[in-house]
């Protein structure tokens, strides 16, 4: 088969414009597939990760947007006393936009010492000391920094909040890289004096072996007698609920990903069929020279595979590069879904390209292998 590689290669590039357009089509299809896959993976990470199940979020009952949830900060002391609680972090959330947006900016205000204990965060620029020592200091997730062109030493303003950037961080949890962490009391004051002593939510770390759902019920029943009723859920469930509208859209976009693959299949199958119809006589000549029909069929499939693999690889690489450098995220009501490149995305992009290339070549290959030689030679 490899001896015929020059023939297959030259056959593939004989109609350069047609081949280039097909490769471009395959690239666009796989690009869309990878982007949609990244959104889906981002959602899965957010709702199914370890952190999603091992910590709880306490929010004001019947509230959805962070600006409307106002819990007394001293609830933290009550929650911390409950059995099974390892730690409680009061958090003030401030966002520039409560609606769905591709450029959502979310400030999370928490005690700086608690933020420093988050084992998911790693500062890649700046230092913890300057973050802890300055009340208006902020550390910025790498994706926000890239998207907004932010760097250490700059000041950054959204609405009535102005912060000094003292660090850029990476996180093992992708959606955290779309956040900006500030001091809790700073953010409370920035949102107005009425917000001092009030926070948006509590993140509760659950001791291993404790049932998070049972603990959530205990927290809600304990705080039921307080001035504000709460709803406590696993972090994953909370984020899925916050992003419920987006989840529906993402599920729909998922189908668009499959549709784009279907389009590539249809485009490639048409091109391969056209290419084989152009070469009915040539394929017959090859068989007269002694090439087995099944081998000629393999030439057709190889050509279709190569075109789709080249296009798919280009599309996959562009998608992964854009995802890596763009720092894209979609968010709503303070929660964000990060679109991250991943090896599994690269592998699935290539696997889809191979599968589509194979399927697109099957029917034309079958036609070539079964065509009568004499009528084919007389064309």
């Amino acid at each position, binding site marked *: 088969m490899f001896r015929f590689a020059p*023939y297959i290669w030259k056959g593939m590039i*004989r109609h350069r414009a047609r081949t280039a357009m097909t490769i471009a089509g395959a690239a666009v299809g796989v690009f869309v597939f990878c982007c949609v896959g990244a959104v889906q993976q981002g959602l899965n990470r957010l709702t199914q990760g370890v952190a999603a199940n091992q910590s709880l979020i306490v929010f004001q009952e019947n509230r959805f947007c962070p600006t409307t949830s106002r819990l007394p900060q001293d609830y933290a002391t009550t929650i911390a006393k409950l059995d099974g609680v390892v730690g409680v972090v009061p958090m003030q959330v401030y966002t520039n936009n409560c609606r769905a947006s591709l450029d959502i900016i979310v400030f999370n205000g928490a005690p700086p010492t608690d933020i420093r204990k988050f084992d998911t965060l790693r500062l890649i620029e700046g230092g913890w000391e300057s973050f802890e020592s300055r009340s208006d200091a902020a550390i910025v997730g790498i994706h926000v920094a890239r998207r907004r062109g932010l760097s250490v030493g700059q000041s950054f303003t959204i609405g009535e909040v102005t912060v000094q950037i003292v660090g850029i961080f990476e996180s093992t949890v992708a959606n955290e890289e779309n956040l900006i962490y500030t001091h809790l009391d700073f953010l409370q004051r920035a949102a107005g004096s009425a917000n001092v002593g009030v926070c948006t939510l509590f993140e509760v770390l659950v001791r291993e072996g404790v049932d998070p759902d049972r603990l959530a019920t205990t927290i809600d029943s304990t705080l039921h007698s307080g001035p504000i009723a709460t709803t406590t859920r696993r972090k994953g469930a909370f984020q899925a609920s916050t992003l419920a509208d987006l989840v529906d859209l993402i599920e729909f976009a998922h189908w668009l990903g499959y549709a784009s693959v279907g389009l590539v299949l249809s485009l490639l199958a048409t091109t391969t069929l056209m290419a084989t119809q152009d070469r009915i006589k040539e394929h017959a000549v090859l068989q*007269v020279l*002694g090439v087995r029909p099944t081998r000629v069929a393999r030439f057709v499939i190889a050509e279709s595979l190569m075109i789709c693999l080249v296009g798919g690889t280009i599309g996959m690489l562009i998608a992964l590069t854009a995802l890596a450098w763009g720092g894209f995220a979609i968010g709503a009501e303070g929660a964000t879904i990060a679109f991250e490149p991943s090896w599994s995305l690269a592998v699935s992009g290539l696997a889809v390209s191979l599968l589509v290339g194979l399927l697109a070549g099957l029917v034309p290959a079958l036609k070539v292998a079964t065509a009568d030689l004499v009528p084919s030679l007389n064309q």
Partner: protein
Amino acid sequence: MSLVEIRGLSKVFQKGGETVKPLEDVDLDIERGEFVSLMGPSGTGKSTLLNLVAGIDRPSAGSIRVGETEVTKLSRAKLADWRAGHLGYIFQTHNLIPVLTAYENIELPLFLLPLSRTERQKRVNIALDAVGLVDRAYHYPRQLSGGQEQRVGIARAIVANPQVIVADEPTGSLDADTGSQIRSLLCQLNEELGMTLLLVTHDREVASLAGRQLRLDHGKIVEASRVRVANSTVGG
């Protein structure tokens, strides 16, 4: 034993609701090194006979043996294998692969044989030399004249050193001068290289080069004349 032995060969097919019988109970023997031409009006089944011998068409009845191989009993895949090593086919319209150079076109059938790269190069160069196209080896078909293309086609047919070469109107699409060059080349293949040729033609001049001239008449073969087998005259 004859190299090609055809017995009781018939071909029947339907065309426009009518039953056509281009070949009916044909018997034919071709000796090793013999040059046989087959003439006859259009539609009398000359090309059909050629295609049956080459194993690219199936007979309705009868048998064809080439060397030790019963061609009519082989599957499509086995027929392809057999052609690769035993049969050279010269087309009327050259049928070169347009994206390959003359050299690559000639080398193509050798990929199917267990030959080293060096051996392939050697054989292609011999074939190119035999057809006088060494200086055109790296030209694409579109850069060659009709006669040169046909010569590449002939080189491709002989490069695997087949038992038998079949040629379907090899001068049919060429002008008089070029046709004459191809005629000389065919004679050379038979006389100097001792190749066995079965040639279909309308052209009396081409047919007259053959040692044995046959005519197809109402599906039957009629022997017109017998002149010579390669390198020796056997009758008149």
